[in-house]
């Protein structure tokens, strides 16, 4: 088990979440005000405070919280002492303590420095990703749920874990620089390849006909379901043997994908009136039985009670302080390992424990609290 010191802001905090998820000792260092991630709603039980934000609840689960003013000189000193006991530090640029001081304190330390230059929506627009998110010609949208930051965090995790493995092998730490702008650009490499090889710039494709002519989100009685009908003639025939639409069946040219592309809107409009007769679970089950790639278009509420996630142990019943028993997601890697992480800490919950470990007496800790270096 490695010890990871976590000074990651939101764009990188999914990285330290992953380290906590696989069982490492992650210490989140926060200011007295508590970090930005604690302030992201929605809030559990509509309690808008530092402990009930859902992003904090998930992204900081299984971590310890040390409330320390790392801008003060004493605070910097304590951070260096903490780094002597650690294997990695994940921090935003510029770090509060210089790289050389950190390396001098602990030559085995991996220091990951994340460069984050602008707000999420600006970084997303500049990266090119905004231009491919949304419906054709309509207002593009930022991906929701700050999910782009989970992707950048996963890249930070991979970079850090690689340097950590090397440090364990050869006893030497490293400094890893991660650019969030480059991380976002790296997430559309297919579009890059398409442009480089054909000169075609990928655009927003919307929700229907995006893959094959007959693919996309089809309306049902209770939401949408997603289908992709393969482009070959058998795929179409198999689908029609189910749909039995007399008008579509009559037009034999439609066995060809090129014809279907030509008449896409006409076909999809007819199919939408067919799909509206079903519940999404029923239409998806029948499609899967017929080997047609299909799935519900789920909301997070659907997923919060999804049978697959419950069966696999991704969703587990926990007894949450204040909220009682509820199903809680433990993460993909914790699911594979079968070991759930703990809850997210209160601000400064582990300050006393960590400072004691570093050799600070009760009196010394009290003095640091009074001088506003520590909060416990």
């Amino acid at each position, binding site marked *: 088990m490695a010890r990871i010191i976590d000074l990651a802001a939101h764009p990188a905090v*999914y990285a330290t979440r992953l380290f906590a998820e696989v069982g490492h000792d992650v210490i989140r260092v926060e200011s007295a005000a508590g970090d930005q991630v604690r302030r992201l709603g929605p809030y559990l039980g509509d309690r808008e405070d530092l402990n009930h934000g859902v992003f904090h609840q998930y992204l900081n689960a299984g971590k310890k919280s040390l409330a320390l003013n790392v801008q003060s000189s004493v605070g910097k000193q304590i951070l260096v002492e903490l780094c002597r006991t650690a294997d990695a530090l994940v921090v935003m640029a510029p770090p509060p303590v210089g790289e050389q001081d950190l390396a001098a304190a602990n030559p085995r330390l991996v220091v990951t420095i994340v460069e984050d230059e602008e707000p999420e929506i600006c970084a997303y627009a500049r990266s*090119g990703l905004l231009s491919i998110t949304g419906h054709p010609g309509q*207002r*593009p*949208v930022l991906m929701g749920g700050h999910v782009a930051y989970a992707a950048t965090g996963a890249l930070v995790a991979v970079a850090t874990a690689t340097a950590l493995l090397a440090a364990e092998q050869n006893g030497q730490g490293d400094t890893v*620089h991660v650019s969030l702008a480059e991380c976002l650009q790296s997430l559309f490499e297919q579009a*890059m390849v398409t442009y480089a090889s054909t000169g075609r710039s990928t655009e927003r494709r919307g929700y229907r006909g995006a893959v094959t002519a007959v693919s996309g989100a089809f309306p049902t009685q209770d939401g949408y379901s997603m289908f992709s009908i393969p482009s070959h003639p058998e795929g179409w025939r198999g689908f029609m043997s189910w749909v039995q639409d007399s008008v579509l069946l009559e037009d034999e040219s439609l066995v060809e994908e090129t014809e279907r592309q030509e008449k896409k809107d006409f076909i999809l409009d007819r199919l939408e009136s067919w799909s509206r007769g079903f519940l999404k679970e029923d239409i998806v089950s029948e499609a899967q039985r017929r080997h047609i790639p299909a799935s519900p278009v789920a909301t997070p509420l659907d997923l919060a009670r999804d049978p*697959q996630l419950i069966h696999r142990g991704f969703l587990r019943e926990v007894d949450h302080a204040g909220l009682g028993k509820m199903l809680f997601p433990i993460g993909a890697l914790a699911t*594979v390992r079968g070991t759930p992480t703990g809850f997210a800490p209160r601000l400064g919950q582990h300050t006393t424990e960590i400072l004691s470990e570093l050799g600070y007496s009760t009196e010394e800790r009290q003095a640091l609290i009074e001088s506003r270096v520590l909060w416990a």
Partner: protein
Amino acid sequence: MTTDVAEPAPTPSSQPQSPTPPLTGVRVLDFTQILAGPFCTRLLADFGAEVLKVETATRTDRTSATRPDPNAKGRQDRPPAFLNTNRNKRSIAINLKTPSGKGLATRLATVADVVIENFSADVMGRLGLSYDHLAPLNRRMIYVSMAGYGHSGPRREWTSMNMNLQAYTGLMMVNGAEGDLPTSISNSWNDYIGGLHATFGILQALAERRVTGKGANLDLAQFECSVSTLAPLLVASAASGRAPRRMGNRFSHAAPQGCYRCAGKDEWCVITIPDDDAWHALVGVVDAKLSDPRFDTLVARLRHHDEIDTIIEEWTSQRSKEEVESRLASVGVAVSRMRRIREVFEEEGPTAFRSMEDPPGHMTAATGVPFSFARNGIAPLAPAPNLGEHTEQALGEWLGLSPDEARALGEQGALV
């Protein structure tokens, strides 16, 4: 020399480096196809692992089948998406339908550090290459499966493709604003997410193996990887019994925040105003109508967001996105024009994307990694292999077989 990308400035990952990449000596037997798995193994290759891609002539990686590209310049033996995803790997062509081919794959697995596949749940079992088949032969083996829904549960048989995962993981109903249609991103987002989680899981398993000497069985589900990235909203729904509000381009900590139409066809810019200082700077540039006491606080601006957006867009829609960006940036407002893929490529190609010579005399674009190590090395870029290019070499290096013995395997039907 023909070229379809600008000649790059020297970059860390396009130049040979003296430090040894961290995963040097790690052998990866790679059965993965299309994108999620190959993206993972490409990262492992970037970190120095020896990735041996198992291919079958009769059924090559379906990246080829799904993305034919007759207009592609440069190499024609593989589609561009394949070339980019499988660079820095080696290729062995094995006929997995014959007993001797299966036997050969099994022997390779006994000397592999990592065996990885992203087939549907039952495929490796039918080939006699499941974790249960192989684990008794190699206790140090890290076996990674990346089926869409994993190898257990009521959805284990379900076929999954990128758009199905975008739909089922909640992404399409989280993107966009309340009342919007399901909203997608035009790339294989979930493949990257799955590949990154698998890579992290493998790095963790390698670190643990150093201590325990034992391998691992990672039955990952790409579905769960993507759901994990949206898990905070699941927590919200599980607690409240409600679907979270779709925020569109808005944010509770900044108002106004949005994507605004600019002059021209389908041109846009984004603006975000986190505090009152930024607001006053915006008001000073945009329109006196915004100078209204009703908009003085963040809470008030959140309440009147629609009205404010209308005024801002009246101003932006009469100006080019470049003008909007430069005028607002000059007063310290956080703003960015929406760049298209073409613009990103043209403006940043040499730094955002690497290039390598493949085939000889032709520079072709390749993606690097978005980070750098001060001390550790990253493998230099090398072209994707031809089908079966390394069959004989791998049989020699992994199994100690001579060229004659390799030929004998071919005669038994193991190779293609």
